C-alpha cells in the first residue's frame, strides 16, 4: 500500500509537533508535510518554487487562524480549483464559533474538527481522523 500524504497547514510549531507525535504512532503509512501559512499551502498545492515535484496530498488538515491569508481564504481558493477541490479538507481549529462552522461548510470544507485540550485527546482525535478517512472513506485517486 502506498503511503498516505497529508498536508498540515498550521502556523503554531507546538501544534505541528503535537500532530507529528500523534501521526508517528499511526498504524497507517503516513507522510505529513507542513505549510506554516496560507500562501505556503497554496504554493505547495500548486507545486510552485521549492515545492516542485512534491506529491499532491490525499488529505489536507487546515487551521483557520493563520497569519496573512486565513484558513477560510485558503479553503475558498482550493475548493474553487477544479483539480484541487476533490482533495478532502478537514478544518482543524480551536474555534467553536457557529459562524466559522457554517462558513466552512458553505465553502465546502469536508468536515470541521475541534482541536481538543490535552495531548491524549488530541491523539484520540488524530486516530479517529485516520480511522475514518483512511479506513472507512474512499479518497479520490490522485
Amino acid at each position, binding site marked *: 500500500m502506498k503511503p498516505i500524504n497529508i498536508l498540515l497547514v498550521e502556523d503554531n510549531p507546538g501544534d505541528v509537533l503535537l500532530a507529528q507525535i500523534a501521526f508517528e504512532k499511526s498504524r497507517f503509512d503516513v507522510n505529513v508535510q507542513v505549510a506554516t501559512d496560507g500562501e505556503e499551502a497554496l504554493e505547495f498545492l500548486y507545486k510552485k518554487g521549492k515545492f516542485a515535484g512534491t506529491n499532491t496530498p490525499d488529505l489536507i488538515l487546515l487551521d483557520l487562524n493563520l497569519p496573512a491569508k486565513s484558513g477560510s481564504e485558503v479553503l475558498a481558493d482550493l475548493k474553487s480549483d477544479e483539480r484541487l477541490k476533490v482533495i478532502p479538507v478537514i478544518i482543524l481549529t480551536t474555534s467553536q464559533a457557529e459562524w466559522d462552522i457554517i462558513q466552512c461548510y458553505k465553502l465546502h470544507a469536508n468536515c470541521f474538527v475541534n482541536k481538543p485540550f490535552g495531548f491524549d485527546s488530541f491523539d484520540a482525535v488524530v486516530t479517529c481522523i485516520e480511522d475514518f478517512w483512511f*479506513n472507512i472513506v474512499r479518497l479520490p485517486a490522485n
Partner: protein
Amino acid sequence: MALDSVDIVLVEDNPDDASLTIRALRKNGINNSLIHLKDGEEAIDFIFCRGHYSQRVFGILPRLIVLDLKMPKVDGIEVLKQVKSDARTCRIPVVLLTSSNQEQDILKSYQLGVNSYIVKPVEFELFVKTVAGMGLYWLMMNQLPY
C-alpha cells in the same frame, strides 16, 4: 415522528441495506431522529419541502444526509448536485454510502462537494462497522453546522 426536525436523512432504495444501516447506527448509540427515503426524488422533495413534503417547515435543516448513488428516477449524484448548489442547503454534510467503487463516481462526487465517499463493504460485519464508524465520526467527532 415530527417531520420538521430530522437529524439524519437516509436515502437508500435497497430495503435490506437501509434496515441494516439503521440497525448499525442504533446499536452504536446513535439515536438521532432518522428518516428513510426510498429514492432521489423523494429525497429532493423532503429536503426542499416540495411535493409530498410541501407542508414541512424549511427552517430546520437535517444534520446529515446519507445518500446511495444508484437509485431509480433521480440518482444520488443529482441529489448531491442540488443540495450543494443551493445556498440554503449547501452546508448540510452529505455522505455517499454506495456499492460503487468506480473511480469516476468517486471523483465526480468529490467534485460536486460530497463530504465523504464511503464504499459499502460486501461483508456483513464490516458493513456494520463501517456504518457505525461513519455515524460516530459525523455525529460525535465532527462539529456540525446547525
